[in-house]
């Protein structure tokens, strides 16, 4: 039998130990301070999730409903792998923006709205207060059990000793105030507190495992024995999964706990605000689920044992953890269990009250105070004091309220159901948070309406029945519905039956919440401030390095005014330090006087946010600066600019590429030009060379005629040579000019309907003399009668004469002309039986002066321009000229299309 004094002194002793640990940790140079940055410490601090609910309530729940107590731990385990996605982003955002609580987070996301922050704060207070209250109740009950072991208590019956619960509550408030509000920055790390919480996490796990092992291996013969006996005792329904309904409940409970483990104010405090490194998430992602598994291993065995041991005795299943060791005289173990439960409850109370007090002071109190211009001006220097004492008083008030809540309003409901009610309340925050970090369009109005509606349904479905059960509202509401409408029954909205009360409430509240949030966000127009914050939140990984330059703000502020604000709230020392930090990262010369630039204003606002909350900081800074509303267009422009840098870069890259391509092309063209230039030079030098030949003869004979006494015969002969050479010269000049006109496209043709047969015969006739002179056999084979085509007859004749004359020069004995109509073409071929053309010359055959390739070898006969001009003429007639050659047979062939109407005569017309 434990005396009251022993219990009381053990309890206060434990509290003093907590004080000592926290105090020792915060001492300068303490090794524990370093531990506070260890990833294991982070993971274990998250175990603040396990409260008296886990410690006592789970056993109670298991004794009643079997396995479903587990659902609330399965959710967190399932969601843990997603933390890398969600928690990391929230951590990054919160650190970058100096966010101090979950209310601050939501307020900041939705345009730094003070109203939304206040709304969330109030919801959290409503949601969490009963939860804290139930923890105090847990402590109080366990205290009672420890002292009145002969008659285990039923819930709600308090003895005179309950006053000790009050003192314990005061002690807790003191501890929280002492270690939770030392620094004015709400974002400051509380190392002492974290280590104390981790210590408590270890104590509760250790205590629970100890009792579990005692029950399973000392009272029973191992786990299998317990289950075997339970089966005999007809308790198997507790460890076999129930039917369909059970499965749907599991789903809703799992979902609920997923949200709770991230967004409960105490989880946000430990997981986000107290986080020192995103890398710690790696450890937490496996260690925290492992902790949950360990602390739940013995829940069912203890519950089953309790049911079997206390058969037909009025022992509340919530108290089995203590009642079993006491019944078997294990007082030491019972005290350990008691301390474990105490640890579970206190850590929850401490962390929850800190986060709630921060919310109340920064998101409720401060915005009201600083929004009142007169007050804020008169008491500006006192504001920090007001702030910190506001927090301390809030902590005290919350704990006392919770104490009296359970004293006065105690409804006798179990730990678990009260906890679940809180969970549902907190779940209402998740749409605005999750939507806020992944969806830029999520708007303030959507979040606000969603939250209010969700909380409204929460109140209606979960709180109203509680009030009804203690007579605060008429009980008929439960059975008949609100205003007598049966579809407005709190426990079966729209006639929905068959779900558990909590699942039902969660379904409707969350459904309405999300629906409103999404629908309104879709249609709502965001203000520039909202959009600014929305972009920063959603794209935090892009902006967090240069946050201040990405905050869109326009206005004028005196540097000195901002500095004095910082001095007031941070103190000279810290304000000077943060100022030098800012200068260090600023990257350009910093002006210490006159007007502050937007970056500094944003920076000051951010630093202040860490102390007084985002919304209050905005209001406060706005009070010393002349802010101009920044227009939506400006925000969009700046956004485009910032985001445009990336695409600009891309554009630049592609431009560089294009430039490179262009320069490559240019160098190619240049090469071609150079080649062209060379060819032109070559052409000119060849032309002049060709011209010199007749001129040489002309000059030589002219001089002879002048100098010598010649007879008439000689005179006439030499004069004839001069005339011939002049003609040759003229032809050459004509051809060069011809070619030049064809090349430049300035050549005009004289189009006429011409009978080609006639044309061929005429050309052949004029060459007959030449063939005769050279004793060459010349045959004409024209396989059609009259054929009229639109051609320039002089030009076609020129081509034919050129081919025939070439043939006459190369032929050994015979030349043939064959003209046929085939494949819609008129084809005229001129063949000779000469030696043929060397293959290497073929590609250059139709180039002007192609023999210029081999400068010293003079072309056999002719000007070297004939074929080049022929080719041009054929092109102008949309025709072709080709050659095929072999020793003993060389054939030049020209083709003219018969369907000339279909063709537009090449660039020219007559």
């Amino acid at each position, binding site marked *: 039998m434990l005396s009251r004094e022993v219990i009381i002194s053990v309890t206060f002793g434990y509290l003093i130990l907590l004080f000592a640990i926290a105090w020792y940790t915060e001492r300068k140079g303490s090794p524990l301070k370093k531990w506070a940055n260890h990833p294991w410490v982070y993971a274990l601090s998250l175990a603040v999730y396990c409260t008296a609910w886990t410690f006592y309530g789970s056993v109670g729940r298991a004794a009643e409903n079997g396995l479903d107590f587990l659902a609330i731990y399965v959710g967190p385990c399932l969601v843990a792998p997603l933390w890398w996605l969600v928690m990391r982003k929230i951590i990054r955002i919160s650190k970058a923006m100096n966010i101090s609580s979950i209310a601050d987070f939501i307020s900041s996301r939705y345009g730094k709205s003070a109203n939304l922050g206040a709304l969330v704060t109030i919801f959290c207070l409503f949601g969490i207060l009963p939860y804290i209250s139930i923890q105090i109740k847990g402590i109080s009950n366990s205290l009672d059990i420890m002292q009145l072991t002969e008659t285990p208590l039923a819930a709600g019956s308090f003895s005179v000793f309950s006053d000790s619960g009050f003192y314990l509550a005061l002690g807790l408030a003191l501890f929280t105030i002492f270690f939770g509000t030392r620094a004015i920055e709400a974002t400051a790390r509380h190392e002492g507190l974290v280590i104390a919480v981790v210590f408590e996490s270890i104590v509760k796990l250790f205590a629970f495992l100890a009792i579990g092992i005692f029950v399973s291996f000392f009272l029973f013969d191992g786990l299998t024995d317990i289950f075997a006996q339970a089966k005999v005792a007809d308790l198997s329904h507790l460890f076999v999964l129930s039917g369909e309904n059970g499965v749907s409940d599991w789903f809703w409970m799992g979902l609920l706990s997923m949200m709770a483990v991230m967004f409960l104010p105490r989880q946000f405090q430990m997981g986000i605000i107290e986080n020192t490194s995103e890398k710690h998430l790696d450890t937490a992602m496996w260690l925290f689920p492992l902790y949950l598994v360990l602390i739940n291993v013995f829940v069912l065995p203890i519950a089953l044992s309790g049911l079997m041991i206390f058969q037909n005795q009025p022992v509340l299943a919530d108290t089995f953890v203590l009642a079993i060791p006491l019944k078997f005289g294990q007082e030491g173990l019972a005290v350990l269990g008691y301390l474990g439960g105490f640890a579970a409850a206190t850590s929850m109370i401490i962390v929850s009250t800190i986060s709630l007090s921060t919310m109340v002071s920064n998101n409720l109190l401060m915005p009201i105070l600083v929004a009142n211009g007169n007050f804020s001006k008169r008491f500006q220097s006192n504001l920090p004091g007001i702030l910190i004492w506001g927090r301390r008083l809030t902590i005290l008030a919350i704990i006392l309220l919770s104490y009296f809540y359970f004293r006065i309003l105690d409804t006798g409901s179990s730990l678990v159901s009260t906890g679940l009610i809180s969970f549902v309340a907190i779940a209402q925050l998740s749409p605005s948070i999750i939507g806020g970090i992944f969806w830029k369009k999520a708007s303030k109005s959507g979040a606000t309406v969603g939250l209010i509606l969700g909380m409204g349904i929460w109140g209606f479905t979960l709180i109203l029945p509680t009030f009804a059960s203690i007579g605060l509202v008429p009980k008929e509401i439960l059975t008949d519905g609100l205003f007598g409408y049966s579809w407005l029954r709190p426990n079966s909205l729209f006639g929905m039956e068959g779900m558990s009360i909590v699942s039902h409430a969660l379904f409707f509240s969350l459904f309405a919440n999300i629906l409103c949030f999404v629908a309104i966000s879709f249609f709502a127009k965001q203000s520039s401030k909202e959009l600014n914050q929305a972009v920063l939140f959603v794209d935090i990984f892009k902006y967090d390095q240069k946050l201040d330059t990405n905050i869109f703000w326009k206005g004028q502020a005196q540097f000195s005014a901002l500095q004095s604000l910082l001095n007031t709230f941070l103190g000279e020392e810290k304000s000077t330090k943060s100022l030098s930090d800012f200068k260090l990262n600023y990257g350009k010369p910093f002006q210490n006087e006159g007007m502050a630039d937007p970056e500094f204003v944003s920076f000051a606002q951010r630093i202040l946010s860490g102390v007084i909350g985002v919304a209050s900081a905005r209001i406060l800074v706005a009070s010393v600066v002349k802010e101009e509303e920044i227009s939506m267009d400006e925000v969009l422009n700046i956004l485009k600019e910032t985001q445009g840098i990336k695409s600009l870069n891309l554009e630049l890259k592609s431009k560089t590429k294009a430039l490179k391509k262009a320069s490559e092309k240019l160098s190619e063209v240049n090469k071609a030009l150079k080649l062209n230039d060379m060819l032109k030079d070559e052409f000119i030098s060849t032309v*002049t*060379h060709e011209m*010199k*030949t007749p*001129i*040489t*003869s*002309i*000059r*030589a*004979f002219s*001089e*002879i005629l002048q*100098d*010598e006494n010649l007879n008439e015969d000689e005179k006439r002969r030499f004069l004839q*040579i001069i005339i*011939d*050479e002049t003609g040759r010269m003229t032809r050459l000049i004509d051809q060069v000019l011809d070619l030049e006109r064809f090349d430049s496209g300035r050549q005009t043709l004289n189009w006429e309907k011409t009978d080609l047969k006639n044309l061929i015969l005429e050309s052949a006739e004029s060459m007959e003399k030449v063939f005769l002179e050279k004793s060459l056999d010349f045959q004409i084979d024209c396989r059609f009668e009259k054929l009229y085509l639109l051609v320039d007859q002089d030009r076609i004749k020129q081509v034919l004469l050129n081919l025939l004359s070439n043939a006459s020069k190369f032929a050994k004995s015979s030349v043939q002309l064959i003209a046929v109509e085939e494949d819609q073409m008129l084809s005229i071929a001129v063949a000779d039986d000469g030696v043929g053309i060397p293959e290497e010359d073929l590609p250059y055959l139709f180039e002007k002066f192609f023999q210029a390739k081999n*400068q*010293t*070898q*003079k072309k*056999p006969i002719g000007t070297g321009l004939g074929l080049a001009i022929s080719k041009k003429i054929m092109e102008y007639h949309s025709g072709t000229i080709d050659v095929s050659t072999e020793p003993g047979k060389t054939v030049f062939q020209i083709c003219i299309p018969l369907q000339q109407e279909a063709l537009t005569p090449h660039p020219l017309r007559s």
Partner: protein
Amino acid sequence: MNKILLVDDEPNILLSLDFLFKKEGYQVLIARDGEEAMALIRDEIPDLIILDIMMPKVDGYEVCAFVKENYLKTKVVFLSAKSKEKDLQKGLALGADKYLTKPFSTKEIVAEVKKLLN
């Protein structure tokens, strides 16, 4: 009587040169391309050759080189339409005694030939 070989593929130029040098009392030989020229050189060993450069089959440079290698006494006068300084240098480098360009002055070419043969 000095023998002069005229090598050119232009009949009218050959005609004018033939007239000029015959009138001066030289014995004149005529070739219409490099190949023909080389054959004549072997057979007749002229005292002077008036040599075009751009000709079918064998060009003037080759003929000049052949002469300077085998017939040291034979003078070579290039007569070409190629009038660039580098063409001139190349001709002289091959051992030619004179480089004249087309169109030529009849008096000049006769005077040069006379000078070279004295």
